[in-house]
């Protein structure tokens, strides 16, 4: 901790000047404009005048907190300057603009999962009691577990005699009490094992994303989430988006190849999870799968071509339960693999699962749920009604299609501030590592700063007349340098955002915002009528609501109306894995969700071009951004 220092400044000087005079390093990422809140200090004694208390709560002001760049010295003071790390930590926790995803969702229902293990002690047969093995098992299940009418497939029947006798008529029967297709049974014998093996009753919740696949390993008895694993979808080598995959699937052997690729990815993740928990594939008796319709089609080996072509008809919205063995998923071959129900060609099980997870369909408030992935899907509604649409946002926010874009992993720039006088940036990377690229959150942050500080105009064109080497003419038009090659991890290339990148980002955000508008108007509502906005998707750990509003990705509403839920698709699959009640709910969601086809809607095009501007052609819709622009102008920015 630095020693106490005494400096003299004139009355009316900024605290920031006093701190500089004391030789204490104080970063001013936003250029000393009171925008970022990073120069926070504590005035312990004495009189100051605060020009601005942006990012400070009244309580904090009460406690003496002040922004060094916005606070004037009125007399003798004692000021505490916290170290940099402390300031950042305080901001992340304290300010509500950044929404972090909760760790895990919990199922509060009492019901047991459909698949359960039944430990049984069976009376051995005798000449007097010569009931067959299977009938004996049935009888004991009724007696000990109240399960009637058990059925079994031939492969399991073949194991029966041996299993019953291996540990002296003590067995564990794995019973599936029902499926969505026949929820009342009959119960099916998934496996029979000698002895008591009830400690391992595992299930999987799977999300097949176009870009990323995620698997949750779950203990079906305790409902505990044992582990999570994720990886890129192996199909990426055959195209980045669903359309490319559909086109690939039309090649000879293409469909089979794609199916195999995704199975390989999933099997790899499963192996990894099972190894970490000392379990075997045979211990996994149930899997639920969510994903967009194309991903589900490819996973099941269904031809997806008509999803692409008008009038966009999937083979099936709710595929029947399949056996893992049939499919090639490396878990117990008799395990049911259950794909959740979808709604239409571009709104699938990932969205119904997301809605289930969001709980919006159980509650009164009018809620907008946004899933930002390679496609942006939106659902609006409440417990009475649901309407959804898909807008092709493109993968820009996932770090794809942008020159310096990357996924939200170590070394990704996730937050940027630009000094409006010098146009020098200050950035922060995940893991505080040297930068490798920019992730989705970073792009939102960077775009917002470039806009607010006038590096780009409202249409996203770089202002070439600025006096800074950061702005230059690149191979494809104007660009802004966020990090010079020397600062980067591989020291090879400058990290830039180009005009073409900006257009991609603008299109992505415009598609989502336009989708919201059209969805709301389609049922006669205004955006202001939306009481809360729940966000799922691939932004990484958090999304900065303030910046997202600044660029016009999210509507200008109080920050407390937003919540970030993380990957909602896999969480919904997880809930469905755990209890039949959620299973029924997701079917209900799918059946009541109305799908709005945007390509058939001219108003979408209009809303889209209207949103293809920063923050929006109609600035009136973004009063907080208008205010911010005025402030920057007042404080001498460009």
């Amino acid at each position, binding site marked *: 901790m630095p020693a106490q220092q005494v400096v003299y400044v004139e009355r009316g000087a900024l605290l920031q000047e006093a701190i500089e005079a004391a030789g204490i390093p104080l970063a001013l990422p936003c250029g000393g404009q009171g925008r970022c809140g990073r120069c926070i200090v504590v005035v312990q004694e004495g009189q100051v005048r605060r020009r601005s208390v942006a990012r400070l709560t009244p309580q904090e002001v009460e406690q003496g907190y002040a922004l060094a760049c916005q606070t004037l010295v009125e007399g003798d003071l004692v000021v505490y300057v916290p170290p940099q790390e402390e300031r950042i930590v305080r901001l992340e926790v304290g300010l509500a603009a950044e929404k972090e995803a909760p760790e895990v969702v919990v199922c509060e229902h009492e019901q047991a999962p459909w698949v359960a293990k039944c430990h049984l002690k069976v009376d051995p047969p005798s000449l007097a009691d010569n009931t067959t093995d299977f009938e004996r098992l049935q009888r004991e299940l009724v007696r000990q577990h109240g399960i009637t009418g058990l059925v079994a497939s031939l492969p399991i029947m073949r194991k029966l005699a041996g299993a019953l006798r291996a540990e002296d008529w003590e067995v564990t029967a794995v019973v599936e009490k029902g499926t969505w297709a026949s929820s009342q049974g009959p119960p099916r014998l998934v496996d029979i094992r000698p002895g008591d093996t009830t400690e391992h009753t595992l299930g999987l919740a799977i999300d097949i994303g176009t870009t990323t696949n995620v698997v949750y390993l779950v203990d079906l008895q305790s409902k505990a989430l044992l582990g999570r694993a994720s990886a890129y979808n192996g199909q990426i080598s055959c195209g980045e988006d669903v359309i490319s995959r559909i086109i690939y699937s039309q090649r000879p052997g293409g469909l089979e190849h794609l199916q195999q690729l995704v199975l390989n990815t999933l099997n790899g993740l499963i192996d990894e999870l099972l190894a970490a928990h000392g379990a075997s594939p045979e211990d996994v008796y149930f899997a639920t799968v969510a994903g967009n319709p194309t991903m589900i089609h490819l996973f099941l080996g269904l031809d997806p071509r008509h999803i692409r072509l008008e009038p966009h008809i999937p083979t099936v919205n709710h595929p029947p339960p399949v056996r893992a063995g049939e499919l090639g998923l490396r878990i117990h071959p008799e395990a049911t693999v259950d794909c959740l129900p979808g709604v239409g060609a571009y709104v699938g099980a990932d969205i119904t699962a997301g809605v289930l997870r969001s709980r919006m369909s159980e509650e009164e408030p009018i809620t907008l749920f946004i899933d930002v992935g390679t496609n942006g899907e939106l659902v609006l509604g409440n417990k009475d009604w649901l*309407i959804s649409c898909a807008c092709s946002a493109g993968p820009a926010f996932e770090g794809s299609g942008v020159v310096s874009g990357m996924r939200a992993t170590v070394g990704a720039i996730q937050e940027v501030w630009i000094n409006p006088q010098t146009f020098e940036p200050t950035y922060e990377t995940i893991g505080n590592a040297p930068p490798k690229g920019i992730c989705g959150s970073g792009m939102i942050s960077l775009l917002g700063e470039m806009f607010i500080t006038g590096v780009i105009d409202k249409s996203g064109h770089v202002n070439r007349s600025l006096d800074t080497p950061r702005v230059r003419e690149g191979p494809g038009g104007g660009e802004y340098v966020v990090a010079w090659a020397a600062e980067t991890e591989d020291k090879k290339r400058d990290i830039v955002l180009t005009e073409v990148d900006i257009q991609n980002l603008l299109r992505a955000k415009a598609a989502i915002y336009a989708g919201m508008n059209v969805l709301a108007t389609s049922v006669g509502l205004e955006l202001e009528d939306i009481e809360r906005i729940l966000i799922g998707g691939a932004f990484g750990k958090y999304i900065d609501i303030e910046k997202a509003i600044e660029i016009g990705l999210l509507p200008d509403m109080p920050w407390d109306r937003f919540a970030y839920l993380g990957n909602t698709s896999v969480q919904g699959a997880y809930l469905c894995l755990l209890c039949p009640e959620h299973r029924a709910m997701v079917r209900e969601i799918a059946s009541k969700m109305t799908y709005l086809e945007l390509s058939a809607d001219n108003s979408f095009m209009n809303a889209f071009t209207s949103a293809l501007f920063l923050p929006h052609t109609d600035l009136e819709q973004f009063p907080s951004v208008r205010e911010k622009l005025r402030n920057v102008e007042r404080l001498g920015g460009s």
Partner: protein
Amino acid sequence: MGLSGLAIYKLLPKTNCKECGFPTCLAFAMKLAARQVELSACPYVSDEAKAVLDAASAPPIRLVKVGPEERKVEVGNETVLFRHEKTFYHPPGFFYRLKDDEPADAFAARLEAVANYGVERVGIELKADGIALQSAAGSADAFGERAAQVVSAGLPLVLIADDPQVMEAGLKAAQGMAPLIYAANAENWETMASLAAQYGAPLAVFGEGLETLAELTEKIKGKGVEDMVLDPGTRGWSDSLAAFTQLRRLAIKKNYRPLGYPIIAFPGEGTEDELEEALLAGQYVAKYAGFIVMDHFDPASLYPLLTLRQNIYTDPQKPIQVSPGLYEIGKPTPESPLLVTTNFSLTYFSVAGEVEGSGIPAWLLVADSEGMSVLTAWAAGKFDAERIAKAVKSMGVAEKVAHRKIIIPGYVSSISGELEDELPDWEILVGPREAINIPSFLKQFAA
């Protein structure tokens, strides 16, 4: 004013039974709100809901039909003031005025000219709609005779006569042809109304000032005549514009039933020459007339007017498209580069603009992607190798371009293989993804 989808949904059973043919009650409600489906498709709607919805969905401007089924002119049923709000549904009919005292030869010749006029424009046959026969001789026989002549030509008729006796002669001759009676006024309305009722013909009502007009239509409605057409008595440019605008607003915005009928207009009255008549007819096409009675027949004015009518009555809900074809940007030579793009207007404008801005003349082949942008069209299979090849083959590209190199948008680079198969003589080059990069691409290409 119509109800919103959500408001209608609240009146429906909310069972999502799918029997109406839509996946959810909300989807059905939204179709109802857009007036694209009938409420009767729902077997379970309650009587109470039915009453509310029926009242909300009655058309604010009555649909009026004139003429025989094969050439009928149907106007009315409009729902908006501005075409961009939805669309204008029923284009106005052009009726040419003939007087019953014209010499027989001249009459027959003009009748024939109107009856036979037909010309195709963008695949649609454009025709003159009918004859407005005016009694000038004051003779019932002459009127009836000439009306019969128009009937035998199969054309829809507007009958113009003040004298009910003369009018009846015309109606007799045109039985079953649903001619429009012009017009009932403050003096003759009772007899005209009974003629309209007797002959099942729609009735035009003349009244100077909207109050007078509304009063008359109410009285006539009281006599059992439902199909009416309005003439508020204005004839010139600004007074007609004001009156017709008010009529349309009253119907659409106020749902004011006494004036919820189509309008008839006479551009030949109150103008100085043929050219001005045609121009005023143009105003009437854009601003709310249902029947336009013209005094001068000339293909040179009819053709532009029919074109205008076609333009104004095009459904604006469809995306803005440019016509597919081979466009010259700058003054290209057979050696100039050839680029291909889609026919979505904004795509075309941005590509053409960048090519033009590059200063390098080029050929721009616009393929029919049904008005979709490059990526959307590609995603929907509307801008694939097959369609591009079809454009190359059908637009006479090979005759105008000497080389065999075609530049495709970078976003569809994946189709280059298939395109090579479709166009074996051509070299497929992948251009930039974004239009903004076209100039530098072309400069490199030309170098």
